[in-house]
């Protein structure tokens, strides 16, 4: 698509944006919900990058986490359950000039929207795709999600989840043309921020799984990890997310991992005995669909001329 931005935009180029320039409606998630922390990190990121609110779009699905765009003062698209990625893809294909962020829940992304997750990863369209993973369906009140730990009880599976949990990082790493795959946790704001920033600066589809506490339905799942930083390995690399200085002491386990090393990334992701945060994989050299399909713009008159030429072939 050809939408270059028009010059006719009365934007004040010298305006500096502050946190309150990005704050939308008051967030109405439960107290203690991890989504608050992700919202704060995203707003901080926008300040840091000085993104113009009118040139930024947050696209979401349906779920607690998908309320996200309402709490931003950017453009927002709160669409259908599971369908955020096609919408975001359409936006970015038509308007590569916009900054696009996608916020999804675990049910949103890897259950109902799983097909889109696979294909959006493969399209590798430049956007940040966050999956806020609380291991449960929150909005609809505690049904099992694909990432619910095996045996964990829910309203739909009161005897405990029947199946082993799906591993979204491992699965994403298995998709052809995946270009950025990272994991972070909302209770470690410095790491969350650094990961979102790396994702934003990445040229391509940046998939970020954010481990997210739900204080109401899955309060216990991440409890141990929150209390015991020993359980966490930080993936450390200058090309990924270097472990922030403030965290180096608190999180003593650092794993040096070159994000270009896909097979090492897959091994790290497959081993679920440890929680690993950081960038598993990152490659900016992969084709981006919106780039591949980029086309020059045409004037209306030009189009008429070309169309007439095409129609000549059908002329009697």
């Amino acid at each position, binding site marked *: 698509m050809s939408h*270059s931005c028009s*010059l*006719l935009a009365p934007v004040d180029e010298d305006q500096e944006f502050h946190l309150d320039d990005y704050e939308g409606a008051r967030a109405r998630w439960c107290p203690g919900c991890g989504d608050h922390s992700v919202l704060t990190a995203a707003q901080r990121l926008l300040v840091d990058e000085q993104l113009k609110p009118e040139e930024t779009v947050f696209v979401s699905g349906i779920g607690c986490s998908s309320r996200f765009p309402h709490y931003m003062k950017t453009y927002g698209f709160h669409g259908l359950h599971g369908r955020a990625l096609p919408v975001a893809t359409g936006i970015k294909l038509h308007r590569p000039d916009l900054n696009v962020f996608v916020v999804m829940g675990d049910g949103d992304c890897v259950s109902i929207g799983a097909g889109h997750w696979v294909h959006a990863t493969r399209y590798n369209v430049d956007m940040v795709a966050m999956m806020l993973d609380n291991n449960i369906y929150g909005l609809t009140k505690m049904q099992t999600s694909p990432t619910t730990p095996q045996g964990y009880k829910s309203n739909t599976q009161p005897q405990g989840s029947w199946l082993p949990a799906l591993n979204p990082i491992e699965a994403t790493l298995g998709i052809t043309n995946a270009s950025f795959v990272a994991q972070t946790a909302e209770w470690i704001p410095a790491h969350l921020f650094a990961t979102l920033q790396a994702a934003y600066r990445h040229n391509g589809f940046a998939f970020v799984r954010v481990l997210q506490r739900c204080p109401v339905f899955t309060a216990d799942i991440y409890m141990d990890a929150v209390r015991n930083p020993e359980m966490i390995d930080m993936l450390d690399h200058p090309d990924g997310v270097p472990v922030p200085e403030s965290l180096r002491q608190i999180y003593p386990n650092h794993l040096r991992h070159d994000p270009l090393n896909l097979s090492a990334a897959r091994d790290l992701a497959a081993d679920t005995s440890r929680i690993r945060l950081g960038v598993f994989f990152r490659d900016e050299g992969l084709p981006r669909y919106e780039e591949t399909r980029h086309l020059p713009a045409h004037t209306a008159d030009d189009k008429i001329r070309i169309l007439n030429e095409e129609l000549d072939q059908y002329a009697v």
Partner: protein
Amino acid sequence: MPSEKKSEELASRALEVLGRPREEFRSTLIVTSEELRSLLDAGSATAEARAARTAAELGAFAVGHIDIEKFSSFQQKGAAVPVSEAPRLDAASRTLRSLLELGDDLYFVRVSSGGDLRDSVSHGLGRAGRAFGAARTVELARSGKYDEEVHGGWLDSFPPSLWNRREWELAPPLIVEVDGADLRPGGLMEFLDGNQKIVLVVRGPAPPAALARLITPGVTVLQTEDPAELSLVAEAEGPAIGALMPPDSCRFVHVPATGEGRARLTVHHMPDEEPKRALGGISVFQQADALRHLATLAAGWGLAAAGDVGPSGDGASGPAGAATAADKLAAWILRQADLQEAG
């Protein structure tokens, strides 16, 4: 001395390699010009004119099925522009169209022998910059802030000194034909901002390391003999300048720091001959000093040996070429040390 034809051919190769930034600027022109056309259509029209426009927009399927006048009354009117400002918008629209009509010439300037490189570049950018001037004129006119005194000349020239951040990001690429003897790139520093891409096609003997003086942390700088390598300029993030140099000039590329990656200076070739003759007004000392500058920078960066990490993947300078480039560079550094002792 390369013939006129040769430099023309090189310039058209450069034009080709700069296809993407060129196309982007053109697309911006088109999108802006179409939007302005819509604005003019919507703004000035009477109800009748609007109905006629609606009839045209609805096309033949509507004939007999839709009451055009009625339909037209429900169309969004679009942003109103004060009637008094219509001529201004017309003029801006004409400016955009005239730039579109210039086609590829918009991205070319030729510095006549003995001419001033900086002035020519400024002129070339100021000409394409009229697009920015036109857009600003529209915005000012729309908001009733247009002031002939201040903004009057913007449709004739809108030089880079007036550009804002966004305009620098959308900057038009420029290809400049210039004699080697006039290659004083120092003055170009002020144009290396935003997303500006400049390519110099150098005619005749030239100071061998002229562009070395432009190396700063954020700018891509390239000297080469191979037009294909200009893709480094075309695809660079941020400002970039490249020169197509005569044979036996320095060949080097400086890639600025991106993300976590470090800046790199890679020298592929050092000239066999030291500068011996003044070129136009450029003295032997000045030519040699630029070479020394390059050598110092390369040393400071830890002397990237050409051929292995060269982002250009320059096949011609295989390992042997790389070795000699490194040797020559080392020699230059030594000589520089000598000079300092002597001085």
